[in-house]
């Protein structure tokens, strides 16, 4: 089945898929962070820092997909 006859279609699809994966991952990470913040409000600073770092690391994978899509 000729789904991707054009490079731009494939690039857009790949990027959407990567965004889907990273959205699920970041959602899970942030939800865990929210729950922990709710349990222990005095540790909010530490948890927030760790959450931001985790989100940036997961986001990086989508950015790699963006770079490949931009090259193509």
């Amino acid at each position, binding site marked *: 089945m000729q789904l991707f006859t054009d490079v731009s279609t494939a690039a857009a699809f790949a990027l959407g898929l990567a965004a889907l994966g990273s959205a699920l991952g970041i959602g899970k990470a942030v939800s865990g962070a929210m729950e922990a913040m709710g349990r222990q409000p005095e*540790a909010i*600073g*530490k948890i927030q*820092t760790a959450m931001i*770092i985790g989100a940036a690391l997961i986001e990086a994978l989508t950015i790699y997909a963006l*770079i490949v899509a931009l090259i193509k």
Partner: protein
Amino acid sequence: MASEQDTHTTGAMDAHAHDAGGVTAEAHAAEMDAAHDAHDTGGGGHGDGHGLLHPPLTGRPLEHPPEPPHFIQVLFKKVDQAPRIESSQAIQDWKKTFEKQFIEQYTAEHGEAPSDKEVEGAVKEQLSHVIVEDWLEKDSHGELVMIDGEYVAKDDEQMTTLQLLHVGPLEKQLPLIGYAPWENHVFMGIAIVAVLFFAWLATKGLRRDRRSVIRKPTRSQVGTELFVGAIDNMCMGLLGEKHARRYMPFLGTLFTLILLMNLMGMVPLMKAPTSYVLLTLSLALCTFFVVQGTAWTTLGPGSYIYHLMGQPKGAFGWALGVLIFLPLEIISDFIAKPLSLGLRLFGNIFGKDVLLGVFTVMGVGLMSLIYEPLSHYFGIPLTPPFLLLGLLFSTLQALVFALLSAIYISLVLPHEHEEEHGVDHLEMAASGDVLGDEMAHDGKHPAPSAA
């Protein structure tokens, strides 16, 4: 000028060998304009087998937009200095054939070979009347083709994005020699000077009096102490109090430099140098050298390799270590970590640039649908949300870069035993508390001393 007019008259004479008789040069010039118009309406010179238009160029005539006002010309001047992309093979073939024919024609007419300028003028004149879109390759991705000073385009929107960004195609940024936009180096120089100035500013009060410890601190010193204190707390939280002071200069400089370079992308008429892939990769290379340097010097080579293998204990541990952990850690330390550091920063900032460019072009396109003459100068502002997003991501990615570097350094430092819970530096950093007087502490622990 005179030579070009001769070219014109020659062309007109040969194109209308049947029509024109013996007429003067001025009448020829006027007739040539009319003749060219007739040519264009007649299908672009198609099928006119005799004279200089053989082989014929197909395409529609180029409509020149009105010239924008001077300040916009200055803003987009770099568009004209964008790199010259090779024209398609077909155009070059046509050019060769045309040049040969033109030289023959000219020699037959005037009895002497034409100068290079005349040949160029003839080629330019032929090309300026058509858009060569039929002859570009199908998968050119809307590439901009510069042919003798004139831009001909297949897909206007896609090219304008890259023109506005003055980045050039991505595959041209990767080679180590060749295309390197000068703005990146200049703006990085500006960022470095700013960081040095900031360092000077932070220690201004301290330098005034060497004997006493603290006079009344100046306003600039207090301000910079907030900033430096936050970085200090971050480093101490991640690296431990013993080693933090050794690496704090590197991490602080890294953070400040990347922050400034990213924020330059938000300033009009400036460009974030971190949107250049080789620059972010070299910053990651600096981190790589620091990490490997501390690993090889503090741990010692043998101990470091042992540490990489995950400190195996028994035979099973050794087998696992040598076969799995060592290659994994080597790939991770030498390839994955530096590449990911650099590409993360580059992707975020370059992606933000592309996003802003696309939305600017979209605004201009929308304006052209609404009121066409205004779209030559302005466009509908669609970019503010993405400017805010860009601001957020610029600062965030600077922080993430510095934090990850600190974490990588902390991974190779010798692990100490559990120290007593003195002051939680990370919490101090995160809550913006530099001196530690806002933190709730019980009577057991003394308040952390300044400096």
